[in-house]
Structure formats: C-alpha cells, structure tokens
C-alpha cells in the first residue's frame, strides 16, 4: 500500500449554467467562458502538482443546458490529465438520468463515474477505494438505495458525496444526511459537493465542501477554489488540506449612501469612491443606492449604468433611495395626507415586524406614490 496519496477535490463547476443577466450584454456568455477557464485552471493545477487523481463531487455540468461541444471539451480536458484517474459522482444538476452524458458519452478511459448502480471504483495501483453517493434524479429527499461501502483499513477510503450534511433544512433538501451518518461510514476523506461556499463540516474527520470553484452569483461572495488534499495513512490518517483559489472573478455587493446628493456629479463621485477598493474592471458589482434624496432629484439609472460600464466589467445598480419627505411632520397633519401617511406607516411597521420584506417594500413604494400624487399631482417613475 502506498503511504500517501494526493488529489484535488472540487465540485459544483456547473458548466453551461445560465446566469442572471445583469449589466452588460454578453455578460452571461463571458461568465460561461469563465467557468471553462476555471476548470482548465483546475486541470492545470492537477498536472502541475502531479497529483494522483482528481475528484469531482457532482454538478460538474448543467444537464439541462450543457452543449455537446462542451461535453467534448470536458472530455478533452480529462484527456489532458494523461491517464490520471478522474472520479466523478453525479450531482442534482448533472444526475445519472436515462439520457445523462455520463451514461451515453464515450468518456476518456481515465474517467470513472460512481453511480447508484455501481457506486465503487477501486484503484489497485494507488490502493484507493472510491465510493460515491450521488443523484439518479434531479431531486432526492432521501439517499439512494445502493450497495453499502466496504471499508478496508489497508487502503485509502474516499467517499464522494453530493448533498446536504447536517443542515437545518434537511426536510425536502437534496440527499440530506446527518454528519454522524457519514462519520459512521468510516471513510478517510469525504469529498462533498452541493454547497457553493467553502465549508469545513468536520475538519477532524476530513469532511468538507470546497464550494464552487467559480462563484455563480452575489450570494457566493468570498474566495472560491478547490482543495488540494494529501492523505497519509499509517496507524492514523493524516490529512493536509490546502485551499487553492481558482475563480476568475468575484461578486461584490456594496451599499452606497446618497444622503444629501442632489446632482449627477455628486452621485458619480460617490459611486467612484464606493468602487475604489475593488478591481472594477474584473469583478462583478451590485451597488445598493441608499439614503434619502430630494423628491426633485431623480436618479437616471440607465445613464449612470452606461457610464460605469465604461470602466467596470459589470455593475448592477439597485436603487433603494427614498424621496426626502418629512414623514413625521406629514403624519401629524389633520389632513388627508396626514391620515394617509399614518396609515401607510402603520402598514410598513406591521410588515417590518412580521418580516414581510416584500410587503414592506410594496407599502413603502405605495407611500411614496401616494405622497407624490397628493403633493405634486403627478407620479414620476
């Protein structure tokens, strides 16, 4: 038996995923290219580090969207690894369904897909036992019924798992499982996939989500990459897990307070300073415009966006500003306006108390629409 093995553990590449169209035209196409670049980077990293095998813990591609040409491209990437084993477990986005590419495509010989029908792959040369728990369908509320793993202590035992571990929302989740269940399986390493943010579930037992190597949205902030793992087995198992950043771009959500801003120049300066700390030409931004501005000053989002697009890769503007009405004063009036403001504020407060964000937004909007109609006799959008 070999005393140590090294490998890369990655998951959730989501090749050919659709992106929400924000910012410039062609954004999503560029982002899909980014995904390919990231995967190329993973493969190159594997070659550079001369690892023993590559593990992909599900959601490698989007079954519903992936093109044939990209499947070919993927296989070419696997061939680049020059017979280095690639072990894959299908995820909920690339499940092992009837017409799955995993089933139909003539993959390179070094690719090993762990399915419910055949969840094992044993590499005798490296003395590694791979066992996969993945997806047969797009949605699994319980683990698939499959052959139980056979753990032998004289070899490395690695479990590839795509699903949710120890989450509060296990009901109705994807392959929900308790951490104790995994620990009881007694693997040397658990290569998890499904969650897009890096997470050590149990460092001691080697149970971790590497996250998506390339972030896919504003809810995937922080660093994204893969795990470079080295397992040493003697009397005990020693794990060395190193995170390698692979992302092409990062998502940033920045709040910009526009209180007191009453001109376009002032607004642009505010935005510039808000973007100052970031790589604006590379990363993806959502700027939440906040604060109270004069009812007379209307933000021309389109114009500002065009201006920002000249220097930024992509910026999405989220106008959360409010007209600078003196609501407290207005609420005091014994007039229709006063009654209206009071009533609306009550509704807003109720929604706020009940965490009804959506309703709160609607009520706030209704308040300003009503005020504008009452006080100006027009409604500007």
């Amino acid at each position, binding site marked *: 038996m070999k005393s140590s093995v090294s490998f890369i553990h990655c998951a959730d590449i989501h090749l*050919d*995923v*659709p*992106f*929400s*169209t924000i910012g410039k035209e062609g954004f*999503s*196409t560029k982002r*899909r290219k980014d995904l390919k670049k990231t995967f190329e980077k993973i493969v190159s990293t594997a070659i550079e580090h001369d690892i023993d095998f590559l593990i992909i813990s599900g959601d490698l591609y989007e079954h*519903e*969207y992936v*093109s*044939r*040409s990209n499947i070919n491209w993927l296989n070419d990437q696997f061939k680049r690894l020059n017979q280095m084993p690639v072990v894959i477990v299908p995820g909920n986005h690339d499940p092992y369904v*009837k*017409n*799955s*590419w995993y*089933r*139909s*495509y*003539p993959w390179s010989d070094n690719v090993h897909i762990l399915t419910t029908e055949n969840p094992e792959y044993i590499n005798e040369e490296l003395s590694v036992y791979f066992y996969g728990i993945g997806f047969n369908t797009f949605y699994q509320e319980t683990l698939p019924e499959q052959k139980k793993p056979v753990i032998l202590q004289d070899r490395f035992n690695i479990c590839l798992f795509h699903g949710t571990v120890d989450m509060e929302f296990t009901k109705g989740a994807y392959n929900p499982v308790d951490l104790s269940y995994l620990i009881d399986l007694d693997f040397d390493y658990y290569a998890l996939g499904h969650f897009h943010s890096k997470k050590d579930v149990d460092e001691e037992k080697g149970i971790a989500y590497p996250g998506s190597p390339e972030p896919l949205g504003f809810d995937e902030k922080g660093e994204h990459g893969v795990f470079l793992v080295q397992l040493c087995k003697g009397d005990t198992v020693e794990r060395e897990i190193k995170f390698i950043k692979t992302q092409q771009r990062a998502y940033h959500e920045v709040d910009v307070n526009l209180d007191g801003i*009453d001109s376009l120049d002032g607004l642009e300066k505010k935005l510039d300073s808000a973007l100052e700390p970031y790589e604006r030409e590379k990363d993806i931004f959502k700027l939440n415009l906040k604060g109270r501005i*004069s009812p*007379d000053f209307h933000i021309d989002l389109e114009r500002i966006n065009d201006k920002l697009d000249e220097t930024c890769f992509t910026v999405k503007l989220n106008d959360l500003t409010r007209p*600078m009405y*003196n609501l407290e*004063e*207005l609420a*005091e*009036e*014994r*007039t*229709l*306006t*006063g*009654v*209206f403001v009071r*009533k*609306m504020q009550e*509704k807003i407060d109720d929604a706020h108390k009940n965490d009804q964000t*959506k309703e709160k*937004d*609607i*009520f706030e*909007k*209704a*308040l300003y*629409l*009503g005020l504008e*109609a*009452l*006080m100006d*006799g*027009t*409604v500007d*959008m």
Partner: protein
Amino acid sequence: MKIKKIHIDGFGKVDNRLFTLQPGMNVFYGHNESGKSTVQSFIKGMFFGLKGGRKSRDGALPPMRQYRPWIHNAYSGKLEYELDNGSKYRVTRNFDKNTITVEDEFSNNITGSFPAAKEEGVKFAEQHIGLTEGCFERTVFIGQMQSVINSDGKKVIAERLTNIKQTGDEEVSFQKAIETLKDAQLTHVGSERSSTRPLNIINSDLEKTTQKKEQLTKLHDSSMDIFFELEQLQKQEIHLKDKLKMLNALKAKLAKGKEVDRLTNVCESLEKCHEQLVEIENIIEKKQDELNIIQSHLKAQQVYKDYSRKDSDDMVSDYANYKLLYKELDGVKVENKENEDAIKELKEELDQNSIFSQDTTKMDKVIQNVLQYKRGKNIDVEKQPQPSSTKRWIALAGLLIGIVITIMSLINANVLFTVVGIAICLVMGVVFVTALKSSGEGKIKEKSTEELEYEDNSKLLDNWMIEAKVDNIHDFIRLKNMVEDKKQRLKGLYDKKERLESKGQVIQNSMDISKDQIVQKLTSTNIIDSPSFEEEDVQKWKTGLETYNHLSQDYKDKDVEKSTLTQKKGSLYREASVILGVDVNTLKEIEEKINEKRQALESLENADDNGAMAVEGLATYEDLTLEDVELQRRRVDEELSKVSLGINTLSTRLENIPDDEMIQQAYEKEQELKEDREEKVSLGKAFDVAIEVLSESSVQIQRDYSPYLNEKMGSIIKSISGGKYEDVMADDSLTLNVQSPDNAEKVIPEQLSSGTADQMYFALRLATVLLVEKDGETLPLFLDEPFVQYDEERIKNVLQLLKTESEKRQIIFFTCKKREVELVNQIFEGMDVNITNL
C-alpha cells in the same frame, strides 16, 4: 399663540424693521410691492426656516435665494411670540449661516431642548404651533380670492372648498390624487383590461420566451436522447461489422469446401456419363450391323412388301372358296342335264294333242257359253221388278204438285211460289220423260245376243271335238284338262332350267373373282407366269409372305432398339452438358472437360485457406452450412444497413439541433422578464395599496373631521351671510352644497354668486383653522388681501366675524386698500387695532 415682535435685519426688500403686534387685530397697510408678502415669508421662515437647494421644477427660486437681502445687511431677524399658556419665546435666526437660537422669556437659550434634523434644523415651531410648516402655511394664511378675475374662478374656489372638505387641504385634491395614481398605474404597469401597457408587454414577451425556452429544452433533451441512441447504434454497428467479417470468412471457407464437392461431383458424373456413352455407342454399332443383314434379306422378299397379313388371310379364303365353288358348279351341271331330258320327253307328249297348243281361253269361254245356254233356256225374265215405272209415278206426282203450286201462286199473286212451282214442274217433267224412255229400250236388246252367241260357239266346239277325236263335250273337257296339266309341268321344267343356268353362271362368276385374286397375287410374286395355279403355288405364296413379314418385324424391332439407344446417348450428352453448363456433343469434348475439371479441383484443393481460419469465434459456427451462413450473413448485412441508415439519420438530426447558448439565453431572458414582471406586479400592488389607503384615509377624514368642519363652517357662514345661508355640507359623492334656511334645495358653490362663494371659502378656511388647532394653540390668522373682490357689506360681515374671532385669536391683516383699513377701524370700534404702515 400670539406674535409679539417681528424684527427683520435683512429679508428681501425689507431692511432693518421692527414690528410690534398686539393680541387682537393687526393691520399691515401698504401699497403693492411694499413688502407685505415679504413680511409673511419672514414669519414663516423664522418659524420653519427657508428651503434652499436648486431651482424648483417650475423654475422658481428656492425661498433661501429668493429672500436674500437686497441691501448687504445680515440675512437674519428675530421673532417674539407668546403661547396660549403665557410662556414667551424669542427666536433669532441667521438664514445665511443657517443658525437659530430659541430663548425663553428669561433669555435662556433653550435651542437644545427641541428636536433637530440636519436638513430642517431645530424643530421648535412644530412643538409650539403644533403644525408642520406645510400645514401652517396652508391653514392660517388666507390669500386673496380670484373668483371674479376669470370664469374658472368659481370652479377653482369650488375645487378648493371640496379639497378642504375632503383632504383638509385646499391644495390637495383627493380625486386628482386617485386619478393620478390610476393613470400612472395604467401607464407604468397596466391592467387586466389593457393590452399594450408595460405589464401586458412583459407578459406577452414572457409567454413567447417561455415557449421558446420550452422548445429549446425539448430540442436539447432530444439531442441527448439522440446522442444516446447514436452511441448505442454505433456500438451495434461495430458488433455487426465484426460479425459480418466473421461470417464472410466462414462463408469463404464453406464455399471452398462446397466447390471442391461440386467439382468432384462434376468429374464423377462426367466420367459416369462418358463410360455409359462408350458402351451405348458400341451397342448401337452392333445393332446397325444386324439391321444391315436383315435389310439384305428383306430385299430378296421385296415382292411381298405390298402384302399384309390380311392379304395372306384373303389368299387362304379365296383359295378355299374357289375349291368349294368348283364342286358346286359340277352339281348344277348334272342337275341341268337331268332337267333337259324331262323337257324333251314332255314336249313329245304334248305334240300329240296340238289342238290345245293354242290359247285355251276362248275355248273355255265357248265351252262355258254352250254349257250355260243349254242349262239356262227355261229361266222366267218377267218376275223381276222394274225400277223405271216407280220413277215415272213419283215424277208424275211431283209434276202435279208443281202445277198446283204455280196455279195457287198465280191466284195469290205470289211471285216466289210461282217461281218455285214452275221450277218443280220443269224438274218433274224431265224426270218423267226420262223414265218413260228407259223402260221401252231394255226388252228388245237381251233376246238377240244369247241366241246368236250360242249358235256360233256350238259349231266351233263341234269342230274341236272332231279334231280331238272325242265324242262328247265332257271327254273333250277331260282331255283338255289333261293337256293343260302337262303344259303346266313343262313350264315348270323350263323354269328350273333357267334357274340352274343362272346359278351356274353365278358360281362361275364367283370362281372367276377368286381365281383372279389368287392369280394376281401369285403372278405378282413370280410364283406363276400363267393364269393357272396349283394348291402348292398358293402354299408357296403364303410361306413367302410369312418370311417377309418375319424379317420386316425383326428389322423394326432392331431399329427400335437402336433408336432407344440413340435416345439414351442423346440424354447422356444432355446430362453432361447440364453438368458442365456448356453443350457437349462428342466423347472427345467430354474427355477434355473432365480433364479441365480435374485440374481445377486439384488446384482448389491445394489453395491456401489460412485467412478464413484466422477469424475469431469461427469455431462457434462450424456446424453451419453455407446456406445457413449466407442466410445469417444476409441478415447481419441487412441489420447493418439499417443500423448505418439509423446512424446517418440520427447524425443528421443531431447536426441540425443547435449546439449553442440559445437555451441559456432563453432562460436568462425568461428570468429577466420574470423579474421585470415581478417588479411591475409589485409596482401595481403598490399603486393598488396607495389608492386603497388613500380612499380609506379620505373616508376617515370625512368621518373624523367633516362633522366638525361642517358645524364650524355653518356658524361662520350664517354669521357672514347675515343668516342667508346656514349650512355647508358634503354629500356622499363628496360634492359640497350650501343649505339655505329659506330654501330647502341645496346649492352647490359653483351656482352661488362670486361674493358668496368667497364667503364660503373664507368660512371653510376659518373652520379649517379651528379644526387644525383643535385642542392646541390658537393660531394667528394671516389675511393677505382677502377682500379684494368683496363688496363693502360683505367685508363688514367678514370683519364682524373677525372682530369676534380677534377676541381670542390674533389677526394679522395685510391690505393695500385704505377703505378696508377704515372699515376695520369702523367695525373694531372700541377695540384696539394695531395699524402698521409699510
């Protein structure tokens, strides 16, 4: 609240002025542009500050810029006021520096005790007045009315009245706000009924995009299905190709074995044919020799060639017949001789009685006549009845009847009976005459013939008896009978003779025919050379014919045998031709072909078949025949064609399915439209909520404030109209109407006279002030030229109202009309009125 002092350092055109006010009526008198509005703005600015910033949307300068002092004095001032509870305050404000100080009556700076906001500054006024800036401005500042300036004036007043009633604010219209919201909702969102509004367009685009995405998804799914199927088919194709290769090899191997077998069979069959042909040809040759010998023998017997077995039978029967006829003819000849003798004898006997040689018929008649006459000489002829006498009597009677009829008819002059009577007379006359004539002739003829005939016949008979030498008639008759008998016998003999001669001639003729036939046969076969022959000649002919027939039959038999052999030979050649596939007609040709096939077989047997043996899995099919293999091969080939066709079809279909990002783009577009829709739906809901809450608020205003407003308005109106009108109320449709005590009918303000409309407005404004300050500070009332269009009487009425009001409320009246100042003095007589000239 009452304003005590107004000290303006610099504000607009007003420079360094101090105005001291009293609790009741205060009049600021000055001509136009003298600073009345500036003073009002200063007061507002002191309480609430001045709005800065840029120009408003209508292009007006913000107050901060508008009231910058014309002369370079400080942009500041002071204001002192007293609240209803007696507490006094001084406010010092620098508009330039945006600083403010609030001091109590003990000059304590209490600025910090008020809430403050960055923009609005210290909010002391809100606390002391109890009103916001807007509300303060809208409520306690009463401006001049425009009711008679233009035709829309009354309508404007009516609207303002309505606004105040509905919203508590003459500038804010509930109806307009609702309409604005509905218009904006339709413009920026749309409704279920609209079709071209943003939400409608988004929904339509979304539907199309979703459809497109679904189509693309189906295509994408089908591309995966096709790829999967294609992969299966390609694997199947490889498998089938391998199988076909193996079957081809097996076929080649089996085909070689079969060819060897075939060639071996061909050779053997040909050799067998050859052997048989050699034997048959030898036999045919022998048969031909035998035929030649028979042929030579037949030539010698050639004379019999025209005779058949029937001829032989005829010869035998002819010859037997001939001999039989010969004997029969001899018998006839003997019999004829005997007859000749009998004739001769009888002839001689008859010659002795020649008298009877003549015809005896006459002799018999004579004898008969004589004998008859002698016997019948006594016969009575008279006893016989006469038929002609009867006839006569009948005729006579008829004649008489005829005559009677005629006479009777003449008497009666009947023509018909006359004719009948004459006819009867004629016929009966004729019959009578004829009867008379026939009875007379018969008696004379009978008597003469009998006598004469007898006399002649007696003489003749007597002569014959003499010649016959007999005496009496009876002997004569006997002799005559005897001779007659002999004559009869002779005649019989002659007849016999004739018959015999005839018979002999017939026999002779038959003999001649038989003889001729025999002689002809014998002569033709050279047995005799003359017409005579012997029995042995006949025998010889018969033997000769038999010999010929025997040889002839033998020849025929041999010839048939030869033909059979020749046919067999032909069929053997045909068989060989069939085997070879080409026509062969000689033994030599067959021998050549046998050699050829033997050589081919030898070379085939020596050929290398390692190729076939190298195919894997061949052993599995070792038991199959070539036909089985061919069948399987064909099946596999057909299957392969189908699979190849399927591969081509699927490949083409796959190539035609786009392999790009269209599906993601469709999804992204769909998501974007969904977000847009969500946004528009939220906006629509916001509009709905705004409209709903605004309507609810309006109802609340009506419920909470309107009764109070109506009450206050009613009393004010009654007061200023001198009791002409006593009530103003809003109906369910929120339309204002005025109730007159004289008239039960309600009148809407637009129908009132301009002055009355102004009064209504004034009353309502005052009522509004009462409403907003209800339970709070009594606010000063700022009147800015409100009576421009009022007649003196109505001014007095209003001033009377104000006089009463001034007892508890500070009134600051701005006017440019001297007469109004005088009227104030007149109405407020006995009360302090502070008049300031600007």
